[in-house]
């Protein structure tokens, strides 16, 4: 199978996997698993107090999601640049081979 076809199918599956919970559990909050772990900790040892907290916290959920998307964007940018370079270098390599 062509690479782009397999990629397309797999990508579709990834979207499906993340969409299904959203449809099945309409009323769930989809809070972070780390926050739920906090609840388990307080359940196991109710006396535990976090002994330190982050010295910088994003001012609002909007800013936090901005920072997360920034992270994804940086990564995606580098990845895209990388693929561009790779395909370019491959062409160069083929040219040199044929010469």
């Amino acid at each position, binding site marked *: 199978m062509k*690479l782009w076809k*397999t*990629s397309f199918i*797999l*990508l579709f*599956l*990834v979207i499906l*996997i*993340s969409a*299904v*919970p*959203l449809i*099945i*559990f309409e009323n*769930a*909050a*989809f*809070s*972070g*698993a*780390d*926050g*739920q*772990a*906090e609840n*388990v*900790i307080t*359940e*196991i*040892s109710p006396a*535990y107090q*976090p*002994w*330190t*907290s*982050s*010295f*910088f*916290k*994003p001012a609002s959920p909007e800013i*936090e999601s901005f*920072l*997360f*998307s920034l*992270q*994804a964007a*940086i*990564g*995606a*940018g*580098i*990845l895209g640049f*990388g*693929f561009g*370079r*790779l*395909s370019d*270098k*491959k062409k160069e*390599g083929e040219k040199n081979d044929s010469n």
Partner: protein
Amino acid sequence: MKKEKRLICLSIVISMILAIPFFRVNAMHIMEGFLPPVWCVSWGALCIPFVVSGFFSIKRKVTGSSKRLLLLAMCGAFAFVLSALKLPSVTGSSSHPTGIGLGAILFGPAAMSVIGVIVLLFQAILLAHGGITTLGANVFSMAIVGPFAAFGTYYLLKKLKVNNAVCVFFAAFFGDMLTYIVTSGQLALAFPDAGGGVMTSFVKFLGVFAVTQLPLAISEGFLTVIVFESIRKYSSRELEVLKAL
């Protein structure tokens, strides 16, 4: 070469001295402040030798080839993207994949420990996700156990002559799952259940992390296959040099 061995040995010694006194078990990343200080120190200490040897591993694998350096940057970028994706899961909560499987397959687990530190530091400092004090524990799960699990799975399945894409899928899948299983274990060791001890709280934390992670690990597997196969199409020669094919 000699200097490298000496540095790695030294880091192992320091790691042991710092970590061992704390391992008296009475029997998505860990949040800032939610791991007692002794555990922060001992997990952090355990990571030192891996990260130190990771630096040398990267240096060895990347020198002399700008293309391999590019591939390493892409592996880091892939981890960056995936660990920023908070996806909904079947438990009604959300978590994010790790993205370390790809780099572990291409550059080996030690190299990925360095990349993992960078990703975790970024999230801890800028996003208040994870934490500086819990960095050691999170590095141990995501940047050491995860990559080793991915690397091990990949080579085991390759030995069994399994189709390459399938190897990549399971490597990424187990790398992701093991990361969160270890996280559960770390929290269980630090917070043993009053009645049932470490095992009971391990099961409780697994209920939060592992179940949520299951569909995400499958997604991570698919995404890793897409990127790996694309890289293979354009630079199979580099992958052979890195002994990843």
